[in-house]
């Protein structure tokens, strides 16, 4: 019989503090240790500017710039609002039109392998181009982006310092226009790669556990949260898909949400990402090599991809309601109610075989919710969550 580990009280702890009464087995402890901390941010060689601070600064300007939308009212931040976990409190976003899916939170988006709920982009820069042009989102055009950039001295200077001179014109579907759009995306990616969740109470608890420290109360998550963690990694099997320190396997699953839907999810996303002219092997990529683009090279499409959607991160999940690809659940409790009973038949395709009704008690739901709330980190530095004030809008190099 494996020796128990008293909550997050390390070996040698002879007093079980108030917040640490759950005795985790060695196996449970091993599972818990896999969930923290976040590793280094993966590189993206297809964007040579991904970790360039100047590109990040330009990207931040562009992210919040409503002038880029067709009618001058919407920016990326409209649907990825920093005040709501870089997501949208509305189930479907409303900009130039109404979107078909809920806005994905941007927390830790740099760790993802695929982008959008259906993975129809293989990089963050390729992703960023699509809402810019989509008629229901910003409904912009290369001509419009060109006009905004060339008409703003700061944007123009920062763009040109990074990417070289703006083209003389940017007529849609010309190489110059696509180069402009891809550079736009690369700057946005450089900003979004900085939207990384900060250490949460859960992380501090795991760190104490890993170091075998008894720690103080501040190193502990509540007893209810510990029970929730046990369910999360154990009989709830949540960790099968919400795996690793980012609480996402980065892949796609059909959890069998009921209702009437024509959304094929990943099935359609695979077709789209292969055809995307901004994908990794494409001409606008900064590294088109097979080795870098291995994920697209061996990607396959199967019938079970129908109705699959990407596993979202659970980092800061309490900030990002509503939930699911269509934003159907207003609260975490509603999500747990769904997983508890798995009501109805899947709207599309076939529910993941491993999903069985968990029949959580109300107490267990409370506990899982308590655990999920321990994944909330401190807010990002304010300088990352707002547009640069005009006073800070200096051209690069000054």
């Amino acid at each position: 019989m494996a020796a128990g580990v008293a909550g997050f009280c390390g070996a040698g702890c002879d007093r079980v503090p108030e917040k640490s009464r759950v005795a985790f087995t060695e196996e449970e402890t091993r599972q818990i240790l896999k969930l923290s901390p976040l590793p280094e941010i993966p590189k993206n060689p297809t964007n040579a500017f991904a970790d360039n601070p100047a590109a990040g600064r330009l990207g931040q300007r562009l992210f919040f710039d409503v002038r880029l939308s067709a009618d001058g009212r919407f920016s990326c931040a409209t649907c990825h609002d920093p005040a709501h976990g870089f997501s949208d409190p509305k189930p479907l976003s409303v900009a130039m039109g109404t979107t078909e899916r809920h806005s994905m939170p941007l927390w830790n988006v740099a760790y993802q392998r695929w982008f959008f709920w259906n993975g129809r982009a293989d990089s963050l820069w390729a992703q960023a181009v699509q809402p810019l042009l989509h008629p229901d989102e910003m409904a912009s055009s290369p001509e419009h982006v060109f006009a905004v950039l060339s008409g703003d001295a700061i944007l123009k200077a920062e763009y040109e310092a990074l990417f070289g001179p703006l083209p003389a014109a940017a007529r849609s579907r010309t190489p110059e226009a696509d180069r402009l759009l891809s550079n736009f995306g690369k700057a946005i990616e450089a900003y979004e790669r900085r939207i990384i969740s900060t250490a949460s109470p859960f992380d501090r608890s795991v760190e104490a556990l890993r170091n075998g420290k008894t720690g103080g109360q501040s190193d502990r998550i509540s007893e209810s949260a510990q029970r929730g963690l046990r369910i999360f990694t154990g009989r709830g099997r949540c960790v099968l898909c919400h795996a690793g320190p980012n609480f996402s396997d980065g892949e796609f699953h059909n959890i069998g949400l009921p209702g009437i839907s024509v959304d094929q999810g990943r099935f359609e996303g695979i077709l789209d990402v292969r055809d995307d002219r901004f994908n990794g092997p494409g001409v606008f990529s900064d590294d088109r090599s097979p080795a870098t683009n291995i994920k697209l090279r061996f990607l396959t499409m199967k019938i079970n991809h129908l109705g699959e959607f990407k596993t979202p991160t659970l980092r800061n999940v309490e900030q990002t309601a509503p939930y699911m690809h269509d934003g159907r659940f207003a609260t975490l409790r509603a999500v747990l109610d769904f997983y508890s009973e798995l009501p109805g038949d899947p709207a599309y395709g076939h529910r993941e075989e491993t999903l069985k009704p968990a029949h959580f008690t109300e107490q267990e739901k409370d506990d899982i919710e308590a655990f999920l709330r321990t994944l909330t980190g401190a807010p990002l530095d304010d300088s990352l969550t707002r547009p640069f004030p005009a006073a800070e809008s200096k051209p690069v190099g000054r």
Partner: protein
Amino acid sequence: MKLTSGNHLLPFLCILITAGSAGCKKAQQAAQPPASAMPAAAVIWPAKCKTERGSFTVTIQPTGGGITLNKHFSLNITLTPDEGASVPTSVSATADMPSHGHGMNTAPETIHEGGQRYRANGMLFHMAGDWSIMVEITAGAKIERAFFPITIE
């Protein structure tokens, strides 16, 4: 061919040996954990298995020494034909999660490296749990398969 939950119970499942085990048991392959995570049992590679029809012994070994959860890897495959076995005309590898009813989200491509050596590129285990690696050999009129169960953590 896709391995389903129905046929994974075939008696031809081969056995991987874990470090420290005296006998045969199902493999438990530790995905590369964060540096600070607890170590887990590691498979002793290479793994060997006879095909279900018995014409080949199949030896597999992932490149890089092991399999990491959610990372692409290649699989080196070596065939040892029994006497009288036909010459293989194709060799492929894939993997499924029998209890999940799905497999990998990639379609590996196998290249012939000469002699009895092959390499399957583009393997990816995106979930922790029980997987079954299948190597399929077409030789003459026969299709031969070898199955290697492995648990990824």
